[in-house]
């Protein structure tokens, strides 16, 4: 669907054609669901977050003026809904959702090639490790990284979605990646495999 086609559908919904909204749901449900799933970490809550995102989008579609792509506006709603949910959960568990900036002063050293999988088994191992690691990444860093990696937004679009300056987007994405690398390097279930070593030695 082109941006113009999408805007036309948005206008139809704004004019009262609620059934036209279904094509927006079908077009964006995969990205919204995956964003929600990686934000909240389980399928039941992700389904609730995704539903709530579309319902809120429908109810507030009158405020969408087309300054950005509809998806950018929708992912912003989804991110905020997930962050609100995680805040309420963290209040119950007394967990901080933000990242201690001074953690970033440490250098990043990658000791081996575990992040460069060659076989399907290694790729699956890396995907599983990243899934585990994302759950330990502070929620604000998780959100910005997901908008980039899953939803494919540019730095400019992420800035619009999260109301951040371009420089802040750049540094936060870097810090999120650095922190995720550190989490993965300390994951005892994710290490440089014998298969990888054998491959390098051949």
């Amino acid at each position, binding site marked *: 669907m082109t941006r113009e086609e999408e805007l036309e559908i948005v206008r139809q919904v704004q004019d009262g054609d*609620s*059934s036209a*909204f*279904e094509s927006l*749901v*079908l077009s964006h*449900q*995969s990205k*919204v*669901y*995956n964003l929600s*799933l*990686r934000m909240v970490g389980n*399928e039941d809550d992700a*389904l609730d977050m*995704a*539903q709530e995102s*579309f*319902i809120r989008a*429908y*109810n507030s579609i009158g405020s969408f003026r087309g300054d950005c792509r509809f998806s950018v506006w929708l992912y912003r709603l989804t991110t905020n809904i997930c962050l609100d949910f995680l805040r309420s959960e963290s209040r119950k568990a007394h967990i901080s959702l933000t990242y201690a900036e001074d953690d970033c002063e440490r*250098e*990043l*050293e*990658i000791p081996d*090639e575990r*992040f*460069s*999988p060659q076989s399907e088994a290694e*790729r699956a191992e*890396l*995907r599983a*490790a*990243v*899934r585990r690691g*994302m759950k330990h990444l502070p929620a604000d860093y998780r959100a910005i*990284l*997901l908008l*980039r*990696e*899953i939803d*494919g937004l*540019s*730095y400019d679009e992420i800035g619009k979605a999260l109301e951040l300056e371009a420089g802040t987007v*750049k*540094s936060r*994405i*870097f810090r999120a*990646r*650095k922190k*995720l*690398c550190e989490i*993965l390097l300390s994951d005892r279930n994710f290490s440089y495999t014998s298969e990888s070593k054998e491959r390098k030695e051949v």
Partner: protein
Amino acid sequence: MAECDKYIMMISSLSDSELSPEQEAELCAHMESCSDCRRIYDAFKGISGAMSDDLVEPPESLSKSIMHRIEAQ
């Protein structure tokens, strides 16, 4: 490693294709001779690939339940 400090954030931007051609050329020239920075770049790209390859299909009920809720409003 100290001289790499100025490049490390640029490595993240390179993996997102968000560098200017001049910045990209400077960083790539540095990485030609710096295995530490090359490994960081490979790590960032590896993680990006793992995340973008790990999408799951939403439940079939999702779109139906959304439209039912909207129609019921």
